[in-house]
Each structure stands twice: as C-alpha cells, then as structure tokens.
C-alpha cells in the first residue's frame, strides 16, 4: 500500500487547480493492470511493476478564508493536510501572506508552499514578514516545473509525517 497524502490548493484561478491534479495525480487507466497481467504471461517476465507512487488527495479552495476553514476543519476531524499550495494574489480576499499566517496558526505542523505568477513581495520580504521557525514555508514561482512540484509535495509530506 503506497503512502497517502492530503494536499490543499488555494488559488483563485480554476485552471491552476486542474494543473495540480494533472501533475500530482496522473491518470491511471483501468486497462493497464489487465495489460500488465497478460504481458507477464505472454513475455515470460514481469516487464515493469506499477510505480510505487504516493497518492495525493487534493482539495481545492479559491480564497484564503475558504482555505483556512478547510484547514481548521481538518484539524478538528484529525485528518490534517500535509501540504498547502497557496497563491499570492487572490482578490478580493486575503493574499498569500495573510493566508499563510492564518494557516500556520491553525495548524503548526502544516507545510506551506507560496506560489505566484507575479509577486508583489520578494522572498526576503515574505521571510521578514512571517517568522518561519521550522522551515514551514517554501516558495515557488509560476510557471512551475511539474517534476519539481511532485518532488516538493512528496518530500514535504514525508517530512510532515516524520515530525
């Protein structure tokens, strides 16, 4: 059984949510298992076992306030999120900075990635604004590289579980 991680994406752009789902949870077809079974019989060798890829359960929020509600709910139900990807500019509500501060308070174990296509603040300014004691915060700028996001999500989620 592969590990199972909970991810929350907070972004006002619908397309971005689709992108995250596409990147983190590549679609696997029902037919591929059947194909693999026949192939091992036909060719006398297991050609490739299914990748031991972690599964991500992805939730969506389109505003910072909504994201905070989901995180608080997850803490209450003890189904905490491992990683949050949060956009910087999300009019009309909280921006990424404010949202991150609220999330860190709601769930101190949460790993947060602030990502934005255009940022009003430099990474240094954000670091100055948010006291980040335990490496809770990471930064990525859009457009991001799919492999990098998968790697980041996995390593952050693992470190989160390890804590």
């Amino acid at each position: 059984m592969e590990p199972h991680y909970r991810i929350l994406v907070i972004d006002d752009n619908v397309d971005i949510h689709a992108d995250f789902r596409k990147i983190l949870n590549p679609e696997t077809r029902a037919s591929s298992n059947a194909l693999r079974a026949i192939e091992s019989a036909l060719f006398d060798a297991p050609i490739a076992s299914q990748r031991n890829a972690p599964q991500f359960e992805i939730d969506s929020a389109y505003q910072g306030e909504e994201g905070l509600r989901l995180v608080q709910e997850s803490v209450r139900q003890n189904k905490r999120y491992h990683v949050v990807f949060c956009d910087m500019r999300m009019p009309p509500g909280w921006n990424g900075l404010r949202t991150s501060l609220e999330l860190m308070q709601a769930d101190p174990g949460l790993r947060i990635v602030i990502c934005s296509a255009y940022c009003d603040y430099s990474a240094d300014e954000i670091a100055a604004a948010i006291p980040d004691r335990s490496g809770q915060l990471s930064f990525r700028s859009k457009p991001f590289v799919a492999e990098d996001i998968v790697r980041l999500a996995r390593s952050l989620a693992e470190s989160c579980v390890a804590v």
Partner: protein
Amino acid sequence: MPLSHSEPRGAGAARTPRWHVLYYILAGFDLLTVVVSLLLSHQVSRLYAESVRANQRWADRFATLNTLSEAAGRVNAPGNDVFETHDAARERVRFDAANAAFERLLAEVQANSLSVLAVCHGEEYRQSFQNIRESMAAMRSEAERIFDHFSKGESELAGGRMAAMDRRYAEVNAAINRVQNHAREAQRDALAAQFAQARALRHFEYVLAGSILLMIVGVTVYGHRLSTAVRAAEYARRRGAIERESLEHALMDASRRAGMAEVATGLLHNIGNVLNSVQASTSVAQRTAGEMRTAQFRRATELMRAQGGALGQYLSDDEKGRQLPGYLDMLSEAMAEDQQALIRELDHLARGLDHVKNVIGSQQRMAKNSTMVREVSPKELFEDAVRFVSASHDFDGVTLRREFEPIAAAMLDQHRVLQILVNLLTNAGKAMRDTPAAQRRITLRIAAASDATALRFEVQDNGVGISREQLASLFSHGFTTRPDGHGFGLHSAANAANEMGGALTAESDGPGRGARFTLQLPLRTPLAARPEQHRSAQPA
C-alpha cells in the same frame, strides 16, 4: 499705536487676527475723532451765535442808554424854552410829561440791564443810577423854581436859576455817562470771557488736528500694510497654485505609471498562469508518450514472427497464443487512448501558447505606437483590449455582446485608449464576480455622435452596479471599492481621457443593477472613411 508693531513676513497664520484687531482699533479711533470734531464744530457755531446775540444785546443796551440821555434832554428843555415862550403853564405840562417818560425809561433800563451788569459792577452800578436819580431830582427842583418864578412874573429870578438848572443837567448827563462807561466795561469783560472760551476751544482744536493727523497716518500705514499683505497673499496663492499644479502633474505621472504597472501586472499574471497550464500539459504529454506501450507492441510482433508458418496454429491452439489477439485489441485500444490524451494536451498547449502570443502581440503593438496618434480601427482596438483581459479568471463564462457602428478608422492615441479600455473591461469583469457565471454579460459598443464629431466606446456590465454616493467620487484619486484596488485606475483613465480632449463618464441605476462606462473621444477622421450608418450587432 499698534501700528508700530513690526510683523515678520510670511507669518500668515499669526498675522490675520492681529490685522483684525488693528482694524477695529483704527475704526474706533476714526469714529471718535469724527464725533469729537463734530462736537467742536457745534461748539464753535454755538459760541458764534452766542456772540452775535450778545453783541445785539449790547447794541440794544447802548441804544437805550442813548435814549435815556435824550429823555434827560427833553426834561431839561422846557426849563430853557420857557424863557422864549413865557408860557409857564404849557412848559410845565411838557416838563411833567418828559419827566414821567424819563422815570419810566430809567426804571426800564435799570430793570433790563441790571441783571447783566450787576454781576460784575453790581453796587457801583446801582450807585450810578442813584446818582442819576439824585441829579435828576436836583435839576427838577431847579426847573420847578424857574416855572414858579415865571408864573409869578419874576423872570429876573428865573434867569438866575437857569444856570443852576443847567449845572444839574450836566450832572445828570455825567451820571448817565458813568452808567454807559460801566456798560462798556461789562461788555469788555463779557468779550474777554468769550475770547477765553474760544481760546479753550482752540486748545481742543489742536488736539483734534493731531488726532486727524494720526487718523490719516494710521489709515495710510494700515492701507499700505494691507496692500503689502494682499500682495504677499496673492504671491503665496500663485506659488501654491504652481506647486499644486506640479504636484498634480507628479500625481498624474504616478497614476499613469501605476496604470501601466496594472497592465504589466495583469500581463505577467496572465502569462504566468497560462504558462503553468502549458507546463502541466507538457509534463502530462511527456509522461503519456513515455509510457506508451511501443516496446510491448514490438515484442508481440516479434513473438508472432517467431512462429513462422505455424502462426495460425499458435493463435488457435497455444495457451499463450490464444491470448495474443485479445492482447492486441487491448493494446490498440490503450494506444488510441494515449493518442487522445496526447491530442487533448497538445490542444491545450496550443491554446495556451496562442493566448500568450496574442497578449504579447497586443503589448508589442501598444509599445510600438506608445505616444503616436495614428489612424487606427476602433473595432480592432476594442478587440485587442478584450484579448488582454479574456484570460482573467473574472471573465470565465462572460458573454460578450458587440454593438459596433462601422467606423473604419479614427485618429487615436492607441496606447492610452487601449489602456483605458483594458481598465474598463477589468472593472466590468470584477464587478460581476458575484453574478452567476451563466448570467455574466458585457456589452461593448462603438458609436459615433450624430454630428460625427465624437466617437464613443461603451462598456456595459450587469454586475454589482454603483451607488449614487460612489458615482460622485468614482473618478477621484485613490477611490476604490475593492480591497486589492489602489484607486489609480479610473482616476488616471479619466485624466487620460481629458488630456485627449474627451471624457470618461459612468452611469448606473444603482447597486445590483450594472454599470455603463462611456469613453468619449473627438473623432478626427475623413468622413469618407465611414460608410453606412446602420448598426450591426454581432453576438459573441
């Protein structure tokens, strides 16, 4: 005098109340001076009238005293005349009449003038009248004797008394003269008193003259200072106006830069988001291509070739061979699915790249003609603006309705008009955030004024609308209703419209009832460029 204060230049705030006080002091002083001078003039005219009246009285008095001498002469006359007429009885009658007249006159004179003269020469004066009476009585008794002698026919004896009577007459006249002298002295005294009064008034006059001088100096100095202050205020006002103007220019520049920054920010955001999808599609396509079962397909064909001529038997009898056709079916199905997925992602990719190309193309067209007023197509300009904003999340599901009058070309500052239109469209999109996606509708209009002197771009939405209060301050600097807005947009847009000789106006029926923004610009184009006048409505 408060005028002697020297006031520091430019201390405007502290100076105003002092000028105020100074003005009232000066006005009070002026009023006092005028009132006092009126009083003085009244006093002088009163003194003059008094003096004229007094002189009249004195003239009357002297006339009466002269009459008294004449009356005394008439009393004396019968005593002399009897020597010529020898009619003692008749002369005695004349004498008695004159005597009575004299007594009346004397009483009258004494009564009239005594009150005045008694003040200074009371006793002496009464004594003089007493002398007149005594001398008169002596003269009368001499006259009586003369008449007695005549009635007895003793004219010799009568002649002897005549000299005595005349002596008494001289004494009467001397007494009257003394009274007259007293009167002259009294007149002199009264005159001296009047002079003293006039002298006192003259002192007063000097003081008044001094006051008037001060008044004039005060008014002059005050007027001078006032005009200086007014000039200084005018100078300060002009300098303030110049400073304000340059500040306004700086603000305008800043808002224009902010407007450009808004366009640039929107651009980066749009492209960033689109590229993100492009990246995701690319990675999916890469993975799909990488996981395609081409190697397995080759092994299947190799397996078939290895059977040589026994392929048919292999497929029908061999345990593995019987699975092969089914496997190939599944494989082709899987490869068709892979192909579909690849096409889908490549489509997505192409759309994204196309969008980026459009956005960048618009930006380049704009940058190339940044300051030039040139002949442009209003329709294409509007479409450029739409391309700019259409990638935004706010335009999801928005129905665009175009009502464009066919205006082929107009002389416009493409860069600025585009910036304003982008701003209006962005606002319209944001105004409809709470409108259900299916109902979001923006109507774009291009129309020419009936006299073909102006061109109108209109952006009408059915979003949150604008309240009456908000309409009033909509175009003011820093106004915004959005928490992320900086309020530069509409302000700088309206400024830009004004600078191009046009106007930006907003209408709304109120909250929840949408809004319409109209950018009106002067239409400078040859009329030949505008064909027929009908409206063409093209649904989005």
